């Protein structure tokens, strides 16, 4: 598919002789249990928009955190303007001219625009803050970004997201940022806001600011970026000039990998529909989702972060009620108002964030395992210690949990074992529907395989499984059917045999986004 050349100055890279403002070489970083980055490189010239592309878990956010001083690399070097630097804190990175705009904006909602822009480094006079000067400078900054409709005295809490983002950009500039990192900046913006953002980005580029642009929207990359770098599974794949590549090429670089026989999902007779969702709407994340889950089936739900998958799961589990739509269990319509009810109906949810949502970390293994089924291990509200211990012991055996005993505090277990504890907790409730949200995130390969084996066994017992995952190989290996969610809706439905990684990735990031019609 031929990519159209975009208007404006997009696609014209600065002359190769433009100075390198940022060079990252041989950067590696690992966290307990997972190697986030393996000897990657990345560089940036002045006055360039350099896109960073990769799946979830490819290492992009780790790289940003290293550049902005939040993490220190285990090895490798960072150079700014040719000088090697090491950042001990985000503040040091800021002073070196690196500014980051995260998705969760770091603003003070009760203070004004001008104050937010200059918090911590306001112009001063003899008496303290020079307010008139601060306001004037704030106005000038906004004007230089071609923003003329923002009142510097307005309280930030009353601004729209698009405007708040602009304040963040102005804040970055107020500290003379020469490198601006933008992490999924268009995720929450309206079309018009996106256009204005692009205008600002081009303006900054013309001024010599280097911009690291992370986005999943491929069409934006073609409209805005000069170069693009692709990471995959924590490794550097390639860097290309945007004009020398196209969409298929990028997707291939992002996902092309051998599929090992790591996923033993065996054939299992698929039974009757157990869960049916009809047109579930929950603003703002989910808009009109319908799907059917059958006994013994594993349905993989793919999609980018923010596509609404976890939100959907939480609607089904009763954490947040649906605005509209119907849920049917075993043929009967049900209204699920809270997790206790969902549990009673036979739905189990293994959440995305096991630390804060799945486990009570200071408690022991046996206490966590029984947490969802306390009634089952009790005699008339009195907890039967023996029954609880028996349940915990069985779980350890069945799931292969490596712990020093049923009394071990779960905080000390490895990620994989913690996940098994959460799984065993929910399986103790004898569910008919099991929703797994990123079940193998942050877990080593060995534990991953074990969890996949468990999933197959459960499917074999007739449980219907909905698996939310950002790992395409996992989705492809474990699912009987694959659904793709994008921006709150299901946009694709593949049977296992028909799916390819490229097709799934394409559906996740397809160009039917808000920029399809942009100039």
């Amino acid at each position, binding site marked *: 598919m031929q990519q159209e050349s975009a208007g404006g100055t997009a696609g014209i890279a600065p002359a190769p002789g433009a100075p390198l403002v940022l060079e990252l070489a041989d950067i590696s970083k690992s966290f307990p249990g997972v190697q986030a980055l393996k000897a990657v490189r990345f560089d940036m010239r002045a006055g360039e928009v350099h896109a960073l592309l990769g799946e979830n878990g490819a290492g992009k956010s780790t790289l940003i955190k290293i550049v902005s001083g939040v993490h220190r690399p285990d090895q490798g070097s960072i150079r700014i303007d040719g000088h090697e630097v090491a950042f001990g804190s985000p503040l040091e990175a800021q002073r070196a001219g690196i500014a980051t705009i995260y998705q969760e904006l770091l603003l003070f909602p009760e203070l004004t625009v001008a104050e937010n822009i200059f918090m911590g480094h306001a112009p001063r006079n003899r008496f303290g803050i020079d307010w008139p000067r601060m306001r004037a400078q704030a106005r000038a900054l906004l004007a230089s970004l071609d923003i003329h409709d923002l009142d510097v005295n307005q309280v930030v809490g009353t601004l729209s997201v698009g405007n708040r983002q602009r304040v963040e950009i102005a804040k970055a500039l107020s500290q003379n940022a020469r490198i601006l990192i933008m992490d999924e900046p268009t995720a929450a913006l309206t079309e018009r806001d996106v256009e204005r953002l692009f205008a600002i980005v081009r303006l900054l580029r013309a001024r010599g600011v280097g911009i690291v642009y992370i986005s999943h929207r491929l069409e934006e990359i073609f409209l805005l970026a000069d170069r693009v770098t692709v990471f995959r599974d924590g490794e550097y794949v390639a860097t290309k000039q945007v004009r020398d590549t196209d969409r298929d090429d990028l997707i291939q670089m992002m996902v092309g990998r051998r599929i090992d026989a790591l996923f033993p999902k065996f054939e299992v007779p698929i039974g009757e529909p157990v869960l049916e969702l009809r047109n579930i709407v929950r603003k703002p994340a989910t808009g009109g989702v319908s799907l059917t889950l059958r006994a013994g089936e594993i349905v993989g739900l793919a999609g980018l972060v923010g596509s609404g998958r976890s939100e959907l799961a939480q609607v089904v589990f009763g*954490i947040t009620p649906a605005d509209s739509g119907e849920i049917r269990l075993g043929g009967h319509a049900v209204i699920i108002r*809270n*997790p*206790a009810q*969902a*549990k009673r109906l036979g739905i189990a*949810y293994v*959440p995305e964030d096991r630390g*804060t*949502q*799945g*486990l*009570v*970390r*200071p*408690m022991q293994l046996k*206490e966590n395992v029984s*947490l*969802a089924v*306390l*009634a089952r291990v*009790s005699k008339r*509200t*009195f*907890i039967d210690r023996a029954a609880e211990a028996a349940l915990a012991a069985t779980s350890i055996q069945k799931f292969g949990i490596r712990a020093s005993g049923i009394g071990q*505090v779960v*905080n*000390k277990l490895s990620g994989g074992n913690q996940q098994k504890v959460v799984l065993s*907790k929910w399986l103790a*409730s004898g569910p008919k529907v099991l929703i797994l949200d990123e079940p193998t995130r942050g877990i080593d390969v060995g534990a991953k395989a074990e969890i996949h084996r468990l999933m197959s066994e459960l499917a074999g017992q007739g449980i219907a499984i909905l698996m939310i995952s950002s790992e395409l190989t996992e989705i492809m290996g474990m699912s009987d059917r694959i659904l793709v969610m994008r921006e709150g809706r299901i946009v694709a439905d593949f049977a296992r045999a028909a799916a390819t990684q490229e097709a799934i990735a394409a559906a996740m990031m397809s160009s039917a986004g808000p920029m399809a019609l942009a100039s």
Partner: protein
Amino acid sequence: MILAAALIVLALQSEQFLTVDNLLNQGRLMTEIGLVALPMTFVIVTGGIDLSVGSIMGLCAIVLGYSWKNLGLPLEGAIVVALATGTAAGFVNGWFITRVKVPPLIMTLASLALYRGLAEGISQAHSVRGYPEWFFVLGQGDVMGVPTQLWLLLLAIVIAWTVLARTIFGRALYAIGHNETAARFSGLPVDRYKTAIYTFSGFMAGLAGFIFVSRVSTTRSDMGTGLELDVIAAVVLGGTSIFGGVGTIAGTTIGFVLIQLLKNGLALTGVKGDATIVVIGTVLILSILITNFVQARRAGER
């Protein structure tokens, strides 16, 4: 341990200290604090706090006196009304905390004022006297040689201990205190349980009010002032963490027993009544410091 040493010192200083009579009398005096400290343990274990217990106690005392004297209810009925008031007051706290999601500190600070205000308003600073004889059995009488209310306290301790240590409800409270989100995600009825503990706290404050009136034979609107200090100090002294998730009824029991003995010891050595609250305040702050320190060290060892 330090307190045990202090107690030994005090005991030695006054021969009256260790007599059975004295100890039983102390048991009588500490019932009000003890009763309220039990639900307070539940509340603090979940990471909350209830500052309004003293005011609820005062309010219930007033309601008891006034519905009997001014409204003409039979005394039994007045007692029931008083207990119901306490329960309702606690429920209101719980409702606002769980449904409107007002932070417990703020809600119970406001209700501390509100309930005390109601007490003052209803009573107009008059007190009520002249209760019939049988009314004083609870507060001043003995059963088999032990003060009546002490039996009640013992029963309450046993029940509270059992609930917290052995039942689903108790386990859920600990989970909520450590990580309310995970508790919710595990299908525990968090809101229902939280409302229940604040309601229970209100009820116990009302019961304490009833016992107090029975003990001192009058009703005044300033009763229970400062109760929250003693109760929270007892709970924290007993090892309950102010941040939630940790605490036992046994610890709390030791806590309020120690505080009562401390007060008694100080009084017997000639320290005047008001000065004892200085000591209690210091004990409160020190206990938190020590608990924090110990927990931080334990966390560091992990």
